[in-house]
């Protein structure tokens, strides 16, 4: 949860538009806008996906499409069944299979928005179409999006997708079933339907503890004995456990600093209350005024010499 959003929310609250968001204001009020290592607020919701349990039944994919009203992407299967190539404008959630080229190792991996604690997409989105909503779900608001696709460039997990073939294109990404289910006090469609419990829903603190318990119970089972998403890109609200290397199953190797911090640490100082531009304008202004006055004072002489009026 970033302070920038809180400012927005504060403003909305003052204007009387956003009653429900007021509760999230207090903790972030005095904090740095983009700490390098953000701390999840206590009410942050989460998904824990354990690749070692997943059987690849893809029930979650169907449930996701249904809950979000997405058409099945059948292009690869010749129109027969849902078979997307990857996350795309029709697919907010996908089960992918990793198979070792010449060996027995394989693993399923579920991909969707990671709901970063300090999302790059939200930091970059010019008019706040993407925002860190209640419980930390990252949602998209169509009336604020200009379609610049900066979110696609910024997201380290390459999640947001653009409807290239639509005249009125939307940004398509997992929104934690925010409008469809979270607001109705239901868990997301994918976790609700998962028959094996390989993806489960809960508070981030609880699921992180649960994941660590699983690692402690069978330490040799899990890659690097750690939870992917605990620190990646500043931490995400979707957490992963895997027996296969994370990079192999398509979870990129990322630093623990949030991109929002990296991207704004200098500019947030320069642009604080517009102080940088104002100082620069003051300095330039003083010098320009001096040079201008001299230029003007010399003007009659120049004009006399050339016989023509001065040009600007």
């Amino acid at each position: 949860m970033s302070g920038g959003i809180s400012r927005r929310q504060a403003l909305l609250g003052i204007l009387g538009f956003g009653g429900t968001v007021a509760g999230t204001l207090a903790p972030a009020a005095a904090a740095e806008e983009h700490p390098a290592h953000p701390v999840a607020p206590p009410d942050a919701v989460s998904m824990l996906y354990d690749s070692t349990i997943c059987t690849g039944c893809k029930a979650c994919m169907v449930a996701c499409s249904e809950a979000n009203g997405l058409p099945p992407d059948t292009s690869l299967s010749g129109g027969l069944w849902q078979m997307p190539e990857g996350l795309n404008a029709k697919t907010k959630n996908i089960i992918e299979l990793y198979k070792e080229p010449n060996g027995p190792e394989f693993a399923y991996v579920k991909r969707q928005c990671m709901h970063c604690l300090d999302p790059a997409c939200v930091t970059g989105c010019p008019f706040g179409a993407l925002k860190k909503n209640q419980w930390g779900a990252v949602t998209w608001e169509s009336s604020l999006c200009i379609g610049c696709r900066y979110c696609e460039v910024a997201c380290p997990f390459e999640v947001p997708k653009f409807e290239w073939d639509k005249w009125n294109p939307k940004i398509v990404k997992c929104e934690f079933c925010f409008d469809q289910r979270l607001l109705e006090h239901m868990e997301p469609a994918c976790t609700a339907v998962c028959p094996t419990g390989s993806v489960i829903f809960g508070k981030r603190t609880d699921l992180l503890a649960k994941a660590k318990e699983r690692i402690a119970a069978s330490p040799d089972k899990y890659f690097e004995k750690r939870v992917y998403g605990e620190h990646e890109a500043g931490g995400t609200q979707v957490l992963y456990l895997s027996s296969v290397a994370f990079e192999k199953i398509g979870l990129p190797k990322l630093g623990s600093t949030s991109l929002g911090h990296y991207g704004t640490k200098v500019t947030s100082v320069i642009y604080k209350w517009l102080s940088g531009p104002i100082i620069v304008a003051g300095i330039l202004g003083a010098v320009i005024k001096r040079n201008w006055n001299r230029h003007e004072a010399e003007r009659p002489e120049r004009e006399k010499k050339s016989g023509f009026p001065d040009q600007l």
Partner: protein
Amino acid sequence: MTSLDRTGTNLINHWQRGVPVYRASVITPTFLFCGALVAIGCALAAVRLFSPLGPFSGMNDAYAWGIWKTFNVMTLTALGSGPLALGIAAWVFDRQKLHVVMRTALVSGFLLYATGLIALGFDVGRPWNFWNALLPWRWNAESAMLEICICMPIYVAIFLSFEILPLFLERLYYTGSDATRVSLRKVAPLLRRIYPFMIIGAYVIPLMHQSSLGGLLLLAGDKIHPLWQTPFLPLLYLLAAGLCGIGFVTFLLLIACLRYSRALDIGVLDELGKLLCAACFFFLAVRAGDLIWRGQVHAAFALDRMSLIFLVETGLILVPGVALLFKVVRVTPRSLLKVATLACLGGMYYRFVPTTVAFHPERQRGYFPTPPELLMAAGYIALAFLGFGLAVKFFAVLPGDTHGWNNKFRSLRLPRWANRHEGNPLPGAEGETA
């Protein structure tokens, strides 16, 4: 290069004021060619109004930004930064010689920026939501994209437009009726009163958005190769804009004066050369310092693909930098043209690479612009080119001798061969005009 001052020591001051190009027809083969490109561009733009971005352009989810953004905006507005770089040199660092080339800088800058903005308008997927820009409480103040969306249009619509206003008023003054003259005489002092304040904005605003163009790429993080991804991106983008701006105005002046057989002013060219030299070394110093600071020097000399791309970039800027240290290069128009071209290419290269060849998303998927995309990009450039060709003929843009100036402007109604204006200069109008 008719009256070229070969030694460079004999101070013939050929560039004294903006003078329109009288002896050249408006309808030339180049004009027709550019006109055709613009027409094709417009036709495609009309198609784009009804066509989704999808198959029309080659962009995809991995390379979500195509050449309209990466070239027409990111790269060409750097070339259009002449008004910023030279304006600061002239008005802040008091390089008085440069005042005479400001109009060339301003007109070219305006055209490149304006066409860049048009490109942006056709590039975004949901342009109708731009009206949110009018509601400041919806601004995400920390977004570099917001800064660009707000700052660039303001810069073009207010500041650059104000700075080129004198061109129009001047023309009106000399071609208009007596009544127009009387009212323009009243306007001129007002204009001069606000001018210094307006140019402050005209420098602060592009300092902001030219650096924000680099700032945009910070969030792309590891997708951009470490030779280019650095916290110094905003500063480097700004310095590259200065480099390109100075280089391009030099290039443009030389080409235009050659084309319209204008005498060159070695003194001013020498000055531009010195500035360009400083800009090259300033950029290279920050670039090198940054690589050393981040411990990426080994990547620069690894001689793999990206390292070679980097070395070419550095060479394109280092060679002109070193060459311009020698006065003989700065005062020989032919060599100055060559090095200015190299420097422009180097700066453009730097501005283009991070969003394209050095941009490596995890899920690689190629991007190559489709023919309509390329043609529209070419159309924007042709439009700027066309605009410049017309501007130098109808307005006092290109610098020239005072004795070439006769208070006359080509008539708008007869845009053909206006040689008949080449008579004796009229007595100088004593009134002041902007």
